[in-house]
């Protein structure tokens, strides 16, 4: 863009929206290339992993939205305050109830890196609220973009109902057009008054937000790999295909695997065709009768 001859802060090269996109390009790619995200994009995500992600997101969004509410009248946040359109806490609660049952609050826990993220959100909200927009941008605009693709992947991989249960997080009821909403959101970001120093800090905070997200994925991946080492490793593809027969919200991958093993054992021992079955029962009956007669 051509250099401007005026002093107005808005026409300074680099609207916040453009500066943010540029500054976070690299970390964005980094986040997409974490092992966890790569697997997810291939549809290789288990129910257990997905539930853990949702739980972490719940802690993160609860903190983020708590701080947003605290700062909803702060001049550095008001322009981007869109609770009805964006806020995810309620949706996450619904999803967690779907996956964990009514006692979900007792079932979930906050992993270390998620706690770090949460702490940072509270710190920013309470001490440096002008940076809060960096966190809102990182999460919400991402959810409205790639998040939609992830929704479809999760729906297929986990065989979730097409009516949307378990995926409320990905569904923005208040946004009729994601593209237009993002455009509106950017114009709002760009209307926040800030000096160059603050702008710089916002860019740094956005990068930090991405890194915090990456750490959450990496910790999750570590946990998942440990789990896989403990139980028998099954090939990824067959796991997906067999999961279709199990109840999505009753079992996780570990129980399914054990089920597979026991069923294999069973079928080794007993015949499967109906005829053979009946012959066996009949002979058993006859044997019992004979034994009984003999015993008398």
């Amino acid at each position, binding site marked *: 863009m051509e250099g401007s001859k005026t002093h107005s802060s808005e*026409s300074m090269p680099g609207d916040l929206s453009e500066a943010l996109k540029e500054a976070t390009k690299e970390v964005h790619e980094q986040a997409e290339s974490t092992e966890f995200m790569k697997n997810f994009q291939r549809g290789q995500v288990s129910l257990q992993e997905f539930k853990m992600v949702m739980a972490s997101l719940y802690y993160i969004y609860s903190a983020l939205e708590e701080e947003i509410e605290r700062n909803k009248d702060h001049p550095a946040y008001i322009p981007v305050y869109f609770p009805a359109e964006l806020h995810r806490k309620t949706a996450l609660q619904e999803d967690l109830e779907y996956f964990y049952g009514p006692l979900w609050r007792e079932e979930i826990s906050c992993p270390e890196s998620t706690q770090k993220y949460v702490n940072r959100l509270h710190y920013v909200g309470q001490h440096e609220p002008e940076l809060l927009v960096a966190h809102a941008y990182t999460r919400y605009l991402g959810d409205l973009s790639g998040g939609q693709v992830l929704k479809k992947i999760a729906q297929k991989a986990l065989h979730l109902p097409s009516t949307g249960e378990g995926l409320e997080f990905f569904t923005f009821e208040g946004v009729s057009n994601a593209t237009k909403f993002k455009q509106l959101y950017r114009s709002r970001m*760009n209307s926040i008054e800030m000096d160059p120093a603050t702008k710089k800090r916002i860019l740094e905070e956005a990068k930090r937000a991405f890194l915090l997200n990456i750490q959450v994925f990496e910790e999750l991946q570590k946990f998942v790999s440990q789990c896989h080492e403990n139980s028998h490793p099954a090939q990824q593809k067959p796991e997906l295909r067999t999961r279709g027969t199990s109840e999505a919200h009753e079992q996780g991958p570990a129980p399914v695997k054990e089920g597979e093993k026991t*069923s294999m054992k069973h079928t080794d021992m007993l015949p499967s065709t109906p005829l053979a079955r009946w012959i066996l029962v009949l002979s058993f009956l006859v044997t019992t009768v004979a034994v*009984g*007669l003999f015993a008398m």
Partner: protein
Amino acid sequence: MGDSAMDSTLPTPESSVPEGALFSMTDVFLFSLIVGLLSYWFLFRKKKEEIPEFTKIQPVTSSVRETSFVEKMKKTGRNIVVFYGSQTGTAEEFSNRLSKDAHRYGMRGMSADPEEYDMSDLSHLSEIDNSLAVFCMATYGEGDPTDNAQDFYDWLQETDTDLTGLKFAVFGLGNKTYEHFNAMGKYVDKRLEQLGAQRIFELGMGDDDGNLEEDFITWREQFWPAVCEHFGVEATGEESSIRQYELVVHTDINMNKVYTGEMGRLKSYESQKPPFDAKNPFLAPVTLNRKLNQGGERHLMHLELDISGSKIRYESGDHVAVYPANDTSLVNQIGEILGADLDMIMSLNNLDEESNKKHPFPCPTTYRTALTYYLDITNPPRTNVLYELAQYATDPNEQEHLRKMASSSAEGKTLYLSWVVETRRNILAILQDVSSLRPPIDHLCELLPRLQARYYSIASSSKVHPHSIHICAVVVEYETKLGRVNKGVATTWLKNKVPNENGHKLTVPMYVRKSQFRLPFKSSTPVIMIGPGTGIAPFVGFVQERAWLKQQGKDVGETVMYYGCRHENEDYLYREELAQFHKEGALTQLNVAFSRDQAQKVYVQHLLKKNKAGVWKLIHEGNAHIYVCGDARNMARDVQNAFYEIVAEFGSMTQPQAVDYVKKLMTKGRYSLDVWS
């Protein structure tokens, strides 16, 4: 019962029962039966659930894998293979549906993952009679193949195999917001042809930014007739078509259970409960309905809907959705021509019990209600409707005529375009002009699409009119080539909602759909509004709001309007209001073009170009936000071109740079569109 009694009545087995035995034969028999059944229960019942899992693992662990899909098809008697390039599973789902469809047409299909087969086998597919390869290819990222289609893509690029004899069709899944829209679908379609294969149906291009499912269904509905025609196969071979729903007539039903036009909950129009939305509209009374134009043949109107007590909130720039009703005389004529009792109470129940969609529209209801409130009877019917109806035309020529229009042959398409589309024939017109066509009314109700809500840009500001939503619309009414008069459903219906002093209130079922069309956050930011004709609607709201902000003592920036109409003295909408705002200073610039008041046409874009320097200054130095509302086809594009010109000239940029500059304005939310076609 005594033992001895039992001993004498029961047939004794070969071995005699010793005297004084504790258990009789019956007991032993019953005991073993129970034990046998219990054993059966424990050992075999669980297995029923586990066996499916076992058999599904088997294919993976078995070492022999059939990588030739042609061999597999020969073995299983299939002639159609549907390959999918899928990342999120959508293409795979479409592929499954297509392969299942084949059965309807006396063919057998199978869905296949290109990653699991040797795709060079395509050159052998013609060994199977009437074979066909269909491809559902999704485009990923920047025009890339999906992971499972990567090998296929590489093979297509490198190979020089001769695919003569191979018949194919491609449906692409893409998203228009991405630059390389449907690149993969397009590539496969083109490349297969280059390699000598024969395309038997045009490339389908689904747009996930619009409605991918609908695009798929539309393509599929024309695809199969084309396939049938190509192979000389009749759909299912018989005259009867596949009904999705079953008609149930209710002779003795409680009227409280019958739908009378509600969109969602039964009786929701009688007992209204917030929150109000698409499934639960609010019946807003019409408080004002006046004609806006002074002359001319058209009827432009301004309506005010009272939303007090509804808890409905809106922002200027939002849309109001209304659920209209069809013209009663049109409904009556359909009933008459089909000889149906429109007041018969019926339900159409889905034959597929697993489907979420139990009925095509709220049931039980009457045909009259369905045709009035639930079904679209004014748009020219789509080809699939014609195809299904054709079977009821008793005259063979007329049946042929309908079938031809529904086919995808070039001749058929041309015929459909000229006979249905260009003449704007609606279903009644078709029934009138095809006199031997008299379908049963319930089948017709199954085929017609749903009546859609209509959206209007709200013409008021909630700051000034918190309990009232204003609408500005033009009544659609025109004469077709055949001399019939077609009327717009919602605009005609709204036109007749004229409140009178006494008598009950006329209401409009409505709800608000939030838009992203918003005034800038800071009132000091200049706005340039371009809204000719009824496109002025949201800007009436915008200007009302800017005036209100001014009254509140806020610093309000330049508020610039570009409006256009045909004749100054005929259809200059809101002339007095705009003049008033201009006088008060809420509207800082008012530029109006009267297209037909002089020899040459003068439109808003011409006025824009007269103020190039001023417009550029506002954009470049003032951070102005631009808003365009109205006709999508020509006006929006012409206005955008005018901006390219202004930016290029005064910003000293090349045309591509100027285009880029304007596109960036859009991304940053500084150039917003609310356009319709």
